[in-house]
């Protein structure tokens, strides 16, 4: 029988379904593993309330543990503490950038959003700071859509929340 840390290590390898270059651990979705009475409980937290990837992540967790003899597997969604982009590691932010997604800029909650300021972002393709926001809402709930005015490429920005 595997212990909690060993199960956690296995689950740490699961890629995020939307952004496969980083794992659910890198993103801060994977919270903890508890073994109670020989059964395994996994706690995950959604990035956004309606993130459609959560069901898929739950299935991936069950699949990863299917042949590991860990008893019954229960995946619980937890909302507290609230997920924040602060949990994304520096290493994972670099992976995002290389993948073409501008990583969240600041380590605090996005206050500019209420007073209408769009932030200055570096284009993940060419590095130019001459970029502008197209929409606060992008291809997934966690991203906004920007474009680079120099290389003309559109790109996703991982919103700070």
């Amino acid at each position, binding site marked *: 029988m595997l212990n909690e840390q060993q199960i956690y290590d296995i689950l740490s390898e699961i890629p995020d379904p939307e952004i496969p270059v980083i794992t659910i651990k890198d993103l801060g979705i994977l919270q903890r593993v508890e073994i109670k009475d020989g059964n395994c409980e996994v706690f995950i937290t959604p990035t956004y309330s309606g993130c459609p990837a959560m069901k898929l992540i739950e299935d991936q967790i069950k699949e990863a543990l299917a042949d590991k003899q860990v008893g019954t597997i229960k995946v619980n969604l937890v*909302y507290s503490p609230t997920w924040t982009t602060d949990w994304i590691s520096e290493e994972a932010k670099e992976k995002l950038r290389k993948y073409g997604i501008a990583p969240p800029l600041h380590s605090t909650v996005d206050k500019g959003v209420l007073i209408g300021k769009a932030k200055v972002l570096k284009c993940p393709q060419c590095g130019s700071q001459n970029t502008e926001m197209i929409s606060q*809402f992008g291809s997934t709930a966690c991203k906004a859509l920007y474009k680079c005015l120099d290389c003309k490429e559109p790109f996703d920005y991982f919103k700070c929340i």
Partner: protein
Amino acid sequence: MTKQEALFNYTLRLGDNALILGHRLSEWSSKGPLLEEDIAMTNMALDLIGRADALLRYASQVEAKGRTEDDLAYKRGERQFLCNLIMQLPNGDFGFTIARQLIVSAFDLCLYEELAQSKDETIAGIAAKAVKEVKYHLKFSTDWTLRLGDGTEESHNRIQKSFDDIWMFTAELFETNEVDAIMVKEGIAPDYNNLKARWKKIITEVLLEATLKVPADAYMQTGSRKGVHTEYLGYILAELQYLPRAYPDAKW
């Protein structure tokens, strides 16, 4: 009414509001005026339906009668729904949807910031998550209210008419009943009477900047707290509940 009954009723009210407005916004999918706005409105729909999922799941746990969140969403008739009337209104034109979204997002911000301090840990956790998302919804509807209000004569007149028409549905958001009295006493929810001033301030600031008039309070609609709804809710449920009712317990 026991505390458990009140908490069930209150959580249902929050969940139903999110579910029905989320469904209305989802109707914009593939019909938005611009691709970006289409995506924005369906993103907001997703946030709301996700919030509804969490709240209805909690309601089902509080009720503890073996019903699931899906049973609550798909197997109740309209008289058992507790969503406010404003959530049920048809989308109208883009301006009407924006007016409704501004009013509801400002209300949600005022409400959910308070609920994030709730003594009920589950409600507080869901609310803290919702606050982060609602800020984006409010930003989106503020931006568009400014553009349409301070835009062309046509856009100005149409969004002004939207605010005028929808205003009679705003007072109902703040109505309280026996359920609220218990929630306030238990420290689970805020007193809705204390939310109104801040909500009005947010709306007034946006409308004035958008060169629009804040409609005067006149006759106000009511009914949802008692399960008496607009004629639209039945049609929404007919669509929303069709599949689970036609094919009970169908799995994807």
